[in-house]
């Protein structure tokens, strides 16, 4: 079994580690709160960002055409990919056509989603992930567990061991400064010698054809300005109408993600530098299918800040890998069923529907409402276990009949009192594993009312 519940259960076997993971991410949430509180117009900014994105999705085809035209006029080559396979093949073709062997890549959730690294590896091509967190998980041959903090599931000792094994750092030296400096030295050499830099895109501006890439480390720029080829990959939803809209999004993005007032680098690429080729790949991969569903369309407003991860009490206590998808957390739980409904049918249930995710979302996606709606779709499509359906049918039947309900309640309470071992069983009653059952009263309120008030 590899559904969220069982992966989360394994994660919870090491409780002190869960506590650490929870506290680390809660700290990020607190930094976000502090940063948001420092902006008096915070809620108005969220509303503006939401409206800009709502507009964008309603005019997406026209904006993409405008963006393409302007980008081409700026000397950027624009490619379109209907799915992950096409995206990967475009990149491979550019690599082969330019006889490239040395490739650096900065963080791009889209290329993760498309499985680009694995695809290139199958074709004998290696890529170095240069975001420190991604570099760490790449060395460990693990997927990222968080879209902004890819190695947040690891402790410094884990990173130290990994670096010792791969980069020959001192054994047991767990100092983050030392480990970071080592990665800096190793990766600097990769940047300088790189022939191709692959980057993601945070925002693509339709009116200018420029695109913006945000990093704290500077790794996107180190690659893009060193290599003779730059390929930037974006989902169709990354376009925004105007340059001035960036003011809204850049004020929200880093504050929501890490609590910084802005990322260290917000780089605006408009034209290739002299002698450089710049390519853009615009990818659908299920996004137009999502766009066509009114209940789930607005998930495409996401700017990938991961604030919903950090606030989610379930994510903090189950870890990113329990979501078995590129994008974990609450937003992943409403995006992934669109990509593969049966494989990801468990994810909308990895939530108590507490609603905190929707409240932190800088573009006001109604995440918890969509989690609820996905549950309905999954049930209607028969994607849920048949036992669950039978149980729910049984419950619905009982609750439809007041007499049957009262009788079942009475029998149930009697069993709890007289034959408690039938329900107080850790094997088949998950409630009882770590919780006592409620102490059943001899009389329900209903029968109390009948005897006292009627």
């Amino acid at each position: 079994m590899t559904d969220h519940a069982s992966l989360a259960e394994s994660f919870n076997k090491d409780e002190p580690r869960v506590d650490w993971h929870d506290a680390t991410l809660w700290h990020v949430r607190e930094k976000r709160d502090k940063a948001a509180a420092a902006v008096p117009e915070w809620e108005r900014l969220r509303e503006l960002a939401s409206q800009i994105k709502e507009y964008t999705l309603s005019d997406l085809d026209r904006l993409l055409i405008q963006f393409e035209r302007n980008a081409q006029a700026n000397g950027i080559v624009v490619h379109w990919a209907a799915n992950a396979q096409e995206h990967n093949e475009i990149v491979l073709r550019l690599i082969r056509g330019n006889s490239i062997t040395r490739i650096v890549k900065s963080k791009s959730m889209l290329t993760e989603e498309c499985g680009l690294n694995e695809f290139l590896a199958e074709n004998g091509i290696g890529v170095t992930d240069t975001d420190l967190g991604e570099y760490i998980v790449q060395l460990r041959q693990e997927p990222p567990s968080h879209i902004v903090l890819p190695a947040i599931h690891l402790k410094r000792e884990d990173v130290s061991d990994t670096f010792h094994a791969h980069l020959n750092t001192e054994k047991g030296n767990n100092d983050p400064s030392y480990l970071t400096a080592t990665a800096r030295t190793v990766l600097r050499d990769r940047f300088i010698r790189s022939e191709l830099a692959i980057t993601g895109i945070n925002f693509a501006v339709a009116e200018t054809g420029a695109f913006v890439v945000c990093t704290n480390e500077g790794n996107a720029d180190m690659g893009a300005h060193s290599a003779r080829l730059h390929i930037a990959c974006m989902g169709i939803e990354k376009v925004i109408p105007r340059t001035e809209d960036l003011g809204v999004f850049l004020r929200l993005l880093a504050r929501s993600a890490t609590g910084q007032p802005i990322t260290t680098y917000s780089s605006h690429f408009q034209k290739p530098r002299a002698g450089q080729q710049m390519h853009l790949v615009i990818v659908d991969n299920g996004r137009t299918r999502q766009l066509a569903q009114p209940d789930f369309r607005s998930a495409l407003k996401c700017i990938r800040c991961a604030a919903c991860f950090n606030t989610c009490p379930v994510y903090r206590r189950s870890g990113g890998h329990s979501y078995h998808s590129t994008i974990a957390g609450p937003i992943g739980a409403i995006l992934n069923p669109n990509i593969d409904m049966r494989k990801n049918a468990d994810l909308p249930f990895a939530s108590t529907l507490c609603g905190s995710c929707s409240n932190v979302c800088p573009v006001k996606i109604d995440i918890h409402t969509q989690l609820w709606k996905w549950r309905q779709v999954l049930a209607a499509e028969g994607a849920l276990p048949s036992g669950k359906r039978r149980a729910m049918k049984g419950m619905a039947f009982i609750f439809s009949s007041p007499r049957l309900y009262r009788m079942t309640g009475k029998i149930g309470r009697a069993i709890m009192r007289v034959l408690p071992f039938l329900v107080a069983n850790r094997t088949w009653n998950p409630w009882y594993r770590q919780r006592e059952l409620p102490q059943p009263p001899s009389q329900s309120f209903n029968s109390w009312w009948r005897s006292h008030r009627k």
Partner: protein
Amino acid sequence: MKIGLFIPCYIDQLYPQVAIATLELLERLDCKVGYPPEQTCCGQPMANSGFASLGQGCNRNFVRNFSGFDYIVAPSGSCVLHIREHLDDDNKEEAAYIRDHIFEISEFLVDILKIDKLDAVFAHKVGLHISCHGQRGLHTSSMSELMEAPFSKPERLLGMVKDLELVRPSRADECCGFGGTFCVFEEAVSVKMGKDRIKEHESNGVEYITSPDTSCLMHLEGILRRKKSNIRVKHLTEILNARQ
């Protein structure tokens, strides 16, 4: 003003004292309260599991029972939220009226009855667990994620109780992990969330944990009793109705 008392199924069966406290509290505030005895369940367990489509029987029964009241009041934010958001029936007009006139007890006392005093006494140190559905769904209090002016209807009511010492946990509105069927299908995370909430209340030295939602308390109580803790749970109405 005719009030229909909605007692969710699990309170009816397992926590009748919460229902009685709610009834007595409303009556002490001079409300005329009726309890339609043929009521069962709001349908939330099915709907939150993906089977809202199986809820017609519950909906029909709910509308049949609660037609004709001015207001419907329940000691559970979660069930109230479900009715407010999802109640639908062939009797459209009646369903719409019910959706607009159903209240969780704390919002009813504060927004409709607008009470500013209670003759309740509860000389204990109490930790408040804010239930997510009441808070974020019904907006019974401000939310830590939003940059909004702080307010809390349950806290305001607890402030009217004599001798009560209220302690806020530092993560004031983190979910307890009950989540309906989540509590069994995601047992490990559910319990861990509950344990973490309890840890905060323990370190605050509370004698009682209270909440406007009985389901959160049922979950927390299960964990407390398993670890043989001295902390007890009491529904908000039990405290607002207490005389000592």
